């Protein structure tokens, strides 16, 4: 839904959307741990050990896992745009060379259409074998039965090295009642991006590590020239809903989670109110952020037009920045997301692939997936092309080495390791909750409603909806 919102807005509001999107996508949602205590989510993002060079064998050496002798045709649905489809086709071609008894037919739809079509296919019971699924839709689709549990394969496929080689936090998205129904291919956090040219011109030092929000504000003020240039872009205005990125630093949570189930909101909390007021003040009091009108007036948003010093930046924004940013590739970089008064935390999100309920050849589909999402597969598809901050720790370096990655790309990795949590809500009713949160927080940022009233209203509307997760 997060991406959905951002995409739709971009179609219509190419002006604000790209900018707002980039910002929006940055916000992580609430911490996943059920404890409301604002402890650092120490257990979640810290990987047990640095990714060893996990010896994933080359796909060629792998015996085809239980495919029948006959020729089998797999249908797949992706959301790649035209320019990226050749990469997918190439992977498929090489796969088919390795497995002559498996044929692959791919369908490509845009992201928003895909989300509309998959339920339609499901209703007619004609889902393709393998489909892309975005984090915002994964839980509803799993709960409604669109996917097969992958546990049987994951348990016995040692070479796939699941879950050890994967970033642990993202896996929560794809897990339902203890079983995994899809596997992430990319997952990334929201951190801070900055326009080097603007900093250089003003002779202001770049954002550094261990920065606080107050220091961020200070930098923003120094780099704001009213009407011309702004210090910061990336307030929590829809289509974003990773509220945790903005509020978590003050210690509050957004969603209450019990036993991996989202059961209510925790948003009505003085810490969240303080956080929201702080961000709203950025626009209304300190005026370091472009107003909604200004965001809208500049097509693509002021950040892409090169008029903003710092902006919330997600790992999936890198290709857009490099290709469409007026500042030009190489003139922008990233820094860690600042620390709040209580902690440093940011949200993260991603997408994955799964085998559907209607697949007649799940074994063949698994043969595909295990190679597609292997270290080599991830490197080939998204690492070296710079398309995605991949879900495997062992493949991550290839993304960091890709031409799309900014110079300080290591900060993305640091976030994934240390302080990025899943961007909640993610459960089956998440889309309804997100729309409620959007409506209310937008009004806070627009100065039309107080943060206190907004969070109370969110709690009032969203709690009953989230409670539905308890009913089975």
């Amino acid at each position, binding site marked *: 839904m997060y991406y959905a919102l*951002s995409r739709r807005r971009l179609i219509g509001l190419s002006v604000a959307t790209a900018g707002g999107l980039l910002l929006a996508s940055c916000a992580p949602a609430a911490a996943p741990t059920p404890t409301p205590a604002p402890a650092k989510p120490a257990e979640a993002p810290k990987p047990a050990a640095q990714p060893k060079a996990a010896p994933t064998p080359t796909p060629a050496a792998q015996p085809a896992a239980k495919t029948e002798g006959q020729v089998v045709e797999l249908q797949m649905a992706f959301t790649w745009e035209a320019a990226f*489809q*050749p990469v997918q086709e190439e992977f498929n071609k090489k796969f088919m060379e390795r497995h002559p008894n498996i044929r692959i037919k791919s369908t490509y739809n845009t992201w928003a259409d895909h989300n509309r079509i998959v339920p*339609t296919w499901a*209703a007619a019971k004609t889902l393709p074998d393998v489909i892309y699924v975005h984090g915002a839709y994964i839980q509803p689709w799993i709960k409604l039965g669109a996917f097969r549990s992958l546990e049987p394969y994951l348990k016995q496929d040692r070479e796939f090295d699941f879950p050890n080689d994967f970033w642990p936090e993202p896996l929560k998205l794809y897990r339902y009642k203890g079983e995994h129904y899809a596997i992430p291919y990319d997952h990334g956090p929201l951190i801070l991006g900055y326009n080097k040219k603007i900093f250089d011109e003003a002779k202001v030092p770049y954002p550094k590590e261990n920065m606080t929000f107050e220091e961020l504000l200070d930098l923003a003020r120094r780099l704001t020239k009213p009407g011309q240039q702004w210090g910061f872009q990336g307030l929590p205005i829809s289509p974003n809903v990773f509220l945790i990125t903005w509020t978590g630093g003050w210690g509050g949570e957004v969603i209450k989670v019990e036993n991996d189930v989202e059961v209510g909101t925790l948003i009505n909390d003085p810490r969240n109110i303080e956080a929201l007021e702080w961000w709203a003040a950025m626009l209304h009091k300190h005026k370091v952020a472009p107003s909604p009108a200004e965001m809208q007036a500049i097509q693509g948003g002021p950040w892409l037009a*090169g008029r903003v010093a710092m902006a919330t930046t997600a790992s999936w924004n890198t290709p857009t920045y490099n290709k*469409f*940013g007026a500042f030009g590739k190489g003139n922008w970089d990233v820094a860690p997301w600042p620390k709040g008064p209580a902690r440093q935390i940011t949200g993260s999100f991603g997408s994955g692939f799964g085998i559907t309920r209607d697949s007649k050849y799940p074994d063949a589909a698994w043969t595909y997936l295990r190679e597609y999402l292997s270290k080599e597969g991830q490197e080939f598809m998204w690492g070296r092309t710079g398309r995605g901050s991949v879900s495997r720790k062992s493949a991550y370096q290839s993304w960091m080495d890709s031409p799309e990655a900014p110079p300080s790309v290591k900060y993305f990795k640091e976030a994934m390791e240390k302080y990025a949590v899943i961007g909640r809500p993610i459960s089956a009713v998440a889309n309804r909750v997100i729309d409620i949160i959007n409506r209310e927080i937008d009004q806070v940022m627009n100065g039309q409603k107080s943060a206190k009233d907004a969070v109370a209203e969110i709690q009032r509307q969203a709690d009953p909806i989230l409670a539905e997760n308890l009913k089975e």
Partner: protein
Amino acid sequence: MRTSSPASPSLAVRPYAPARRRGVWLRKAARYVIAYALIVPGALIFLFPLLWMVSTALKEPNQIFVYPPQWIPNPPRWANFIEGWTKYLPFDIFLRNTLIITANNVIGNLVSCSLAAYGFARLRSRARDFLFILVLATMMVPNEVTMVPTYILFTHLGWVNTFLPLMVPAWFGWPFFIFLLRQFFMTIPYELDDAARIDGCSTWGILWRIILPLSKPALAAVAVFAFIGNWNNFLGPLIYLRDKEKLTLAVGLNQFRGQFGYVDFHLLMAVSLLVLLPILVVFYVAQRFFIQGIVLTGIKG
């Protein structure tokens, strides 16, 4: 305002006194000025998106979002058109598919909707009013809720991933056109029907010889709408066509959009312009039929 009709005898050349001639010229000029003063501002606004499309279609990707916007890209990137059309997707195949579906649907709609409209306009039946409301009623149900059941229906028929769901229904009429043609048919006087019947014409003969020829403007309008509607039709092909070689232009265009807001605007706009051209040509040419068609009522004074 009246349509000038050269065939009308009353406007035949009359001798004017020279003073009158000047007055007539002044009035005509004034009319032109007023007309242009009203027409041109609207036209400029309506042209704006097209101009923006052209401008974006010629830009380098990192020039698209520069602010203030540069209207004239420098240097213009003509390669966008070629790259968009040929490099990633087989737009020539999409073009062929779109032509097939569109041609079929225009003809199918013209035939089926004329027939139905004739029935509702001219032929009597006890069930007529009820059925006509039913025709309109199908326009009143948002297609979000019928989309999935329709898809399931076509799945059971085995028509998914073929052109059939897109081509067959056109031969069974479409409410919008039926309603439109019915209204037009009802403006044709009965006297003509009577005269024809006296000459021994059958019901169908009346349709063919009297009603249709007199309805050329309306039929032209239907043809243009059907053409444009099918040319741009996106939802149907999106749902029912899976193989890449079967896709249409509208769906192909859409694939310049990526995930999470990434859109190859320069390519999208370039190819959109190419796809838009035939529509503009068709419309411009078809105007002759629904603007300058002279309606002869066949009844003098």
